[in-house]
């Protein structure tokens, strides 16, 4: 099972690559869009700002390639943190920026959606399931995962919301639209719980 990690210039690539190697995946760091076509799974990692991230994706021609492989061919994609946020329709970070649009929704700063605590939201927080999902097989409800972000995904359609976390207000922790998954937390940095989640993603077979 080969997994391509999209290297658009902004991720904590080293950590993501190692986490997948750890669970026995064959990992390819995709430095250009052509490299994702022969992978079975795609990961869109992310550390950084929405506008900058979308600019990097646009410049190198990632967006059409991702659309073809993920939306048309139906290969499973996991977006992590900024990678999850860029799945949205729009981002609201220094003006409005168009996202990939794979899961309808918008990305807004935590204080805009009602959080009055310290921003960024940094650290381990419990993830609360709203529905069962293959990603959480073997992971008990309310397990802690590592978060580090200032913006949050607000899905347009509640059906796409798999799990929340609470940081003064409800924050989308995991979203899914068919074969497209997104985690606001960092599974690659969430120790054993995170490794299990990544393994579940690798083992998931789209119907």
């Amino acid at each position, binding site marked *: 099972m080969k997994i391509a990690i999209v290297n658009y210039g902004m991720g*904590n690539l080293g*950590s993501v690559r190692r986490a997948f190697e750890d669970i026995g995946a064959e990992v390819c760091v995709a430095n250009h869009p052509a490299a994702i076509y022969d992978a079975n799974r795609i990961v869109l990692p992310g550390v*950084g700002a929405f506008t900058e991230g979308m600019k990097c994706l646009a410049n190198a021609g990632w967006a059409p390639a991702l659309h073809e492989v993920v939306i048309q061919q139906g290969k499973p994609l996991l977006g992590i943190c900024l990678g999850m946020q860029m799945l949205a329709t729009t981002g609201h970070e220094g003006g409005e920026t168009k996202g990939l649009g794979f899961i309808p929704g918008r990305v807004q700063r935590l204080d805009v959606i009602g959080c009055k605590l*310290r921003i960024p939201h940094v*650290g381990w927080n419990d993830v609360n399931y709203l529905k069962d999902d293959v990603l959480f097989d073997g*992971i008990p409800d309310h397990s802690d995962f*590592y978060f*580090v972000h200032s913006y949050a995904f607000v899905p347009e359609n509640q059906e796409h919301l798999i799990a929340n976390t609470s940081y003064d207000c409800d924050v989308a922790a995991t979203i899914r639209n068919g074969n497209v998954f997104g985690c606001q937390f960092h599974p690659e940095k969430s120790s*054993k719980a995170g490794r299990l989640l990544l393994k579940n993603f690798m083992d998931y077979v789209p119907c």
Partner: protein
Amino acid sequence: MLKIRVIPTLLWKDFGLVKGVSFDSWRRVGPVLPAIRVYNSRDVDELILADIAASLEGNPPDHDSVSDFSEECAVPFTVGGGITNLEQIVALLHAGADKVAINTTAYSNPNLIETAANRFGAQCVVVSIDAKRYADGRYSCYSHAATIDTAKMPVEWAKEMAARGAGEILLTSIDRDGTMLGYDLELVEQVANAVDIPVIASGGAGSYDHMIEVVKNAGASAVAAASIFHFTEQTPTGAKNAMQAAGIPVRRNFVSSAAK
């Protein structure tokens, strides 16, 4: 609910881990890699690695070593020491660091904090502040591994760094560092009250009670400690048990529900 983090700090100089007292009289305490392995196997919340000699000696970050270290680290890994430009941050992130801690260069080139936060996101940029208390009770920030007095006040400096996009403040009391006499509560409280970003208290932890008081009384979002974990029988898990008993939310070790 967000948990209070317990973060072992690894002070790294030349080829090994060191311990000092108030940033002085460093002595070797062992190699880095086995320490990271042990902390990782004990499922700690996060790790901070600080190359304490880099800025002092003008060396760039050693990303090859960081790459070896991060290989063993499945939890968030912050790397600091000697960072002067964006390219080094890119190299560290590729090497497996999740966050970078910037101290000395923040004073000479505060723009680096802004450009790094814009490029990599605020959450990736930890500003490390080493502060010393004067006899009159005022505090001052020191650069170059606590050798140069910058004449900046920690509260003002932390505010400026937060405004420039820092995601966290790693606040170390130079006076308390390595003494195990307890955190400088006044220092932590002043800074934690002044900024809206998380403040990691560092320097002086000698008992679990010290950790509890800096969280409850001074508002720290995380506690960093080195000596207590290296030189006493106290452990990060023990710290979290004590903190939980004191009513502080902490992360419990993960147990899978799958018996498949």
